[in-house]
């Protein structure tokens, strides 16, 4: 298991390493002069200021040197300052990361709580009308663009029923965006769970369990569910990454003050230090979460835990 996790961790480090390179190169791929774009708005910017910015971004040095500088500063937790307003990028990102994480985690919980039982039920009732209805609903759920779903929920739950706050960052405000994200992902989780469980149900060892004369419920609970969880957990990591991505859209709709909205603003403002920092933080978060899920996976699967 340690070996397995070690490998995954090494993989994660590699990912982050590649990200740092990509992020360093990012600014060079921008057509035109990025620093000028950044400062274009401020009419009074002096050439000295532009030069100062250029050198603080290290753009006047060869790329490998820039890279080393970047990593050097990174190791000190320094991601530079925003172009607009000169705030610390690292601080900004770290301040908002928890919001996105909370959102994605709650959404994941919602998706799991709704999707898993339904997927399990559908697998159990495979081929019946219920299964059909559930799966058509799930596909329909996947097919609804989540930004649309978000607006529908907003008007229904917040305006018409008035039971949830609309937008902002209060404790209850997380519910709507999380619900939006969770619901559209619940469908995916349900489908995943169903196919994983069906897979398990057709395995020889389930036939063995039946042959032992165990009650159906016991077979489902002990044998199908336990074994089926393993493949489901493996895809959860991806699911989470997916939600982090989807969070950008819902954060924007519900004014949830997450890292995704920050990134979106930064993109429109060409605030490259923020974009760089965002990509790095985002990728790192995904890597860490996936690693954590890998650990859960390893715990669930004795073939890995015991080796």
């Amino acid at each position, binding site marked *: 298991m340690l070996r397995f996790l070690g490998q995954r961790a090494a993989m994660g480090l590699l*990912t982050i390493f590649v990200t740092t390179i990509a992020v360093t190169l990012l600014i060079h791929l921008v057509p035109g002069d990025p620093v000028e774009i950044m400062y274009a708005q401020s009419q009074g910017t002096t050439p000295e200021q532009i030069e100062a910015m250029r050198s603080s971004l290290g753009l006047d040095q060869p790329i490998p040197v820039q890279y080393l500088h970047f990593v050097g500063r990174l190791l000190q937790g320094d991601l530079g300052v925003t172009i607009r307003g000169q705030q610390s990028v690292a601080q900004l990102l770290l301040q908002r990361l928890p919001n996105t994480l909370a959102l994605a985690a709650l959404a994941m919980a919602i998706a799991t709580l709704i999707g898993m039982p339904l997927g399990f039920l559908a697998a159990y009732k495979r081929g019946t009308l219920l299964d059909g209805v559930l799966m058509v609903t799930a596909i*329909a759920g996947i097919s609804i663009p989540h*930004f649309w779903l978000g607006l529908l929920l907003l008007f229904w739950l917040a305006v018409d029923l008035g039971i949830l706050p609309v937008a902002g960052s209060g404790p209850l405000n997380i519910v709507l965006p999380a619900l939006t994200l969770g619901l559209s992902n619940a469908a995916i989780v349900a489908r995943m769970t169903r196919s994983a469980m069906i897979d398990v149900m057709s395995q020889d060892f389930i036939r063995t369990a039946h042959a032992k004369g165990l009650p159906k419920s016991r077979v489902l609970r002990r044998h199908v569910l336990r074994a089926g969880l393993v493949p489901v957990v493996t895809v959860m990591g991806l699911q989470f990454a997916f939600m982090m991505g989807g969070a950008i859209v819902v954060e924007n709709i519900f004014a949830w003050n997450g890292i995704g909205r920050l990134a979106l603003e930064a993109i429109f403002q060409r605030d490259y230090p923020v974009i760089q920092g965002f990509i790095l933080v985002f990728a790192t978060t995904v890597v860490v979460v996936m690693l954590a899920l890998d650990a859960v996976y390893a715990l669930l699967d004795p073939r890995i835990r015991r080796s």
Partner: protein
Amino acid sequence: MTDVTDTADAPGREERKGRTPFVVRLVRQPAGAIGLAIVVALVAIALLADQIAPYSPIKMAAGRPLTSPSFEHLLGTDEFGRDMFSRIVHGARLTLQIGLIAVGISLTVGTLIGLVAAYAGGFVEKLLMRSTDVVFSFTETLIALAFVAVLGPSLENAMIAVGIAGVPFYARTCYASALGEEGKPYFEASIAAGAGHARLLFLHLLPNVVPTMIVIATLGLSNAILAAAALSFLGLGAQPPTPEWGAMLSAGRDFFNRAPWLMLYPGLAIALTVLAFNILGDALREALDPRSKDRS
């Protein structure tokens, strides 16, 4: 001469004989038939958009602004008096293009990487698969964002970004499938017969991974359409007056209260298309699944 009919030969294998043709198996499933029908209809609409649409999709003041659906304007008009029905119809063309191009990119690059990695083995394999693994954890949205951040928002960039983001998944699937095929004796038999690299790759491996990849691509198409629509929604995709559904949906939200159909129809169009490709993909998978081979 030895008996030609070989009567005693395993009837257990017999079920492979007279296997129903693939398409028949596909449309025999209600889902497959429905999915296929919708997709065919969509393609027809896309191809015949100019004939079907009663108005130009970008011509303003084709009717009065914001009229609700009527006989003249089946789906009403938008705030510029453009005919929504015509826009949706033309949007079908665009949306399919987006899906096809994005998936085309993912599919070609992914398949190539997967095939080569599986075939070449050794260092090349490790390098290719590890790097796709790395890209994998970046997620679609992140790649798209980075792409748009660098090159600026446009539909082309969004398509390319969605396409690139899909590569790792296709590469992995293709890789796994190709590894499976490679492990089968027929592949070694061809090596033993002296087949060269090109022959092995393109005559044996490729055709045998294609069915899997088609299924993936069908399911991926719906993904790509949604992703591109989300980018448009964020203002990172299609630019006006392009009748892209995601952009239309995004534009329509200003009229959420006054003219709800402006959001409803593009939303439904996206949902229906995605739905169609999803169930078609599912049906394809089912039809290609050996376990379903002799279902009635």
